[in-house]
């Protein structure tokens, strides 16, 4: 070889591809941003200082904790537990359970959350201010037979509860369960059939097989979409006013604005809180997904060593 360093190709110093449209887009965005900022500054109806003030008012903070955060938490707990149960029922060999799960999912997916909350809060209390728990048609039967009792075992004053966060969270949770059922079903179906068969071959009964073997593995598939559902639920707590639950973030901040004839700051105060809560949850979701995405096919490092050790037999 007689080639010298000079005629061998050296370090590459090429011109990068130009992206003129990117600059056009940046300019457009800059103009829009400037317009928005100019509106913030010149239109005093925005009144940001007052919006920040509304954010920390006691009723607003109370609405944040009891309405948004507790409401989301309660609804998601009900939704996840009931949803997993529905998924297991949906996949069961028992046609009655399958049917019940199907009808439940059908009903609660079809009915809007706002309507459901009105129905549970306002509608149900109109029908039953007090729940009588007893024999069906008990009052009619006892009247016909001339009994002294009306065959009611327990009473429960629903009207005392009907416009509390409990009913609100229940309503959102019942609705959420229908969606969680689909997510959990996909998760359960993602687990290899061989896992169930191995557990069965060991003599594990179906319930234990589900709890100990299938569900823990289904979690990998269930967790990421559940994070999305939780974030969506934060926003849906603003529907709680339909119950009506008035200890609710947006209702309180909006009302505060209205009372002081400062509509926009009231809306902005609520919006900023939703942005904050959802951002925190998104960060949480990121870490949760990283955790659950890990494991399973990884760590092949042990393989070569393992093969050597195995060779002794």
């Amino acid at each position, binding site marked *: 070889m007689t080639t010298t360093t000079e005629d061998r190709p050296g370090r590459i110093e090429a011109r990068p591809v130009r992206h003129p449209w990117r600059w056009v887009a940046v300019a457009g965005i800059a103009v829009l941003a400037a317009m928005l900022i100019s509106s913030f500054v010149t239109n005093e109806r925005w009144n940001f200082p007052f919006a920040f003030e509304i954010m920390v008012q006691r009723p607003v903070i109370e609405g944040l904790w009891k309405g948004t955060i507790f409401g989301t938490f309660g609804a998601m707990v009900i939704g996840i537990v009931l949803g997993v149960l529905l998924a297991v029922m949906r996949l069961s060999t028992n046609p009655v359970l399958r049917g019940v799960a199907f009808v439940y999912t059908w009903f609660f997916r079809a009915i809007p959350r706002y309507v459901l909350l009105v129905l549970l809060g306002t509608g149900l209390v109109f029908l039953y201010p007090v729940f009588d728990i007893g024999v069906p048609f008990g009052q009619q039967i006892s009247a016909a037979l001339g009994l002294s009792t009306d065959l009611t075992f327990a009473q429960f004053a629903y009207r005392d509860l009907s416009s509390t966060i409990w009913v609100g969270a229940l309503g959102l949770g019942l609705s959420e369960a229908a969606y969680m059922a689909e997510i959990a079903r996909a998760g359960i179906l993602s687990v290899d059939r061989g*896992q169930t*068969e191995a557990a069965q071959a*060991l003599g594990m009964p179906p319930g234990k097989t589900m709890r100990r*073997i299938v569900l823990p593995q289904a979690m990998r598939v269930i967790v990421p979409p559940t994070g999305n559902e939780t974030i969506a639920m934060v926003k849906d707590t603003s529907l709680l006013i339909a119950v009506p639950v008035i200890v609710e973030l947006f209702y309180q901040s909006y009302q505060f604005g209205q009372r002081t004839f400062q509509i926009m700051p009231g809306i902005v105060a609520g919006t900023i809180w939703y942005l904050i809560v959802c951002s925190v949850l998104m960060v949480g979701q990121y870490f949760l997904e990283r955790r659950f995405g890990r494991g399973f096919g990884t760590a092949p490092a042990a393989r070569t060593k393992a093969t050597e050790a195995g060779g002794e037999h």
Partner: protein
Amino acid sequence: MTTDAAAPALVRALNVTKAFHGVEVLKGIDLDVRRGEVVVLLGPSGSGKTTFLRCINQLETIDGGRIWVDGDLMGYDDRGGVLHRLTDRRIAAQRRDIGMCFQRFNLFPHMTAVENVAEAPVQVKGIGKREARERARTLLDRVGLADKADSYPAQLSGGQQQRVAIARALAMEPKLMLFDEPTSALDPELVGEVLAVMRELAAEGMTMIVVTHEMGFAREVADRVVFMDAGAVVEHGTPAEVIGRPQHERTRAFLSRMHAQETEHARVAAEHAAAEEAALAAEDPAG
């Protein structure tokens, strides 16, 4: 292996039939397996070996015939000639005495080796966690994996995974072990370590039904070889009879195909060993 011919069979299958979507894949299988006996099932792909094995522990329900394991009618309660299907719980209870190893191991990936082995004794037999783990470690030691007790299945080689699977089945102290091609998903160099564990198990007197294409194992370990084709038993007898002097054309055809394959495997294994030896020699010229 010595077996008492007069002793009642541990497994008795009588005229077992099974169809999938109207296609009969088992056409009246009869098989008796005595206590301590090792039976190897041979047969071409699709002949129904896996299906028959799964029928024994009720992973498939049979359409006709009867299967008894240790005197228990599998899957049904015979009340005066009328069969009543058993509940899932009672079927689960019947499976406790039957261990099974799958072609694809089916270890629980979210549990370590020792957790895999201890799971069923804790959940099914109600043994304390501490004791179950201790026993699991002993079993893992027995299959040569004491040092891998805390590894997850994904961190183990195929051969190691299958040995954990064997330990997991043994943890239930089964009367009978079913093996469905336990080595056919393994790289050739890992087959030996699994077969060694199975040989040991056979030597200790475990009753085993083994579906395998490992002819060496069948010849040396089996008390009896059963050749199946198209859902029926074509012939059965000692390894010397069935493998050495097959009576049926289909058996002969199958065995000659197996033989060709085996020669090929032996050639690959020999090459492998030679390469390894060469590598060792290169590494350590003095030795």
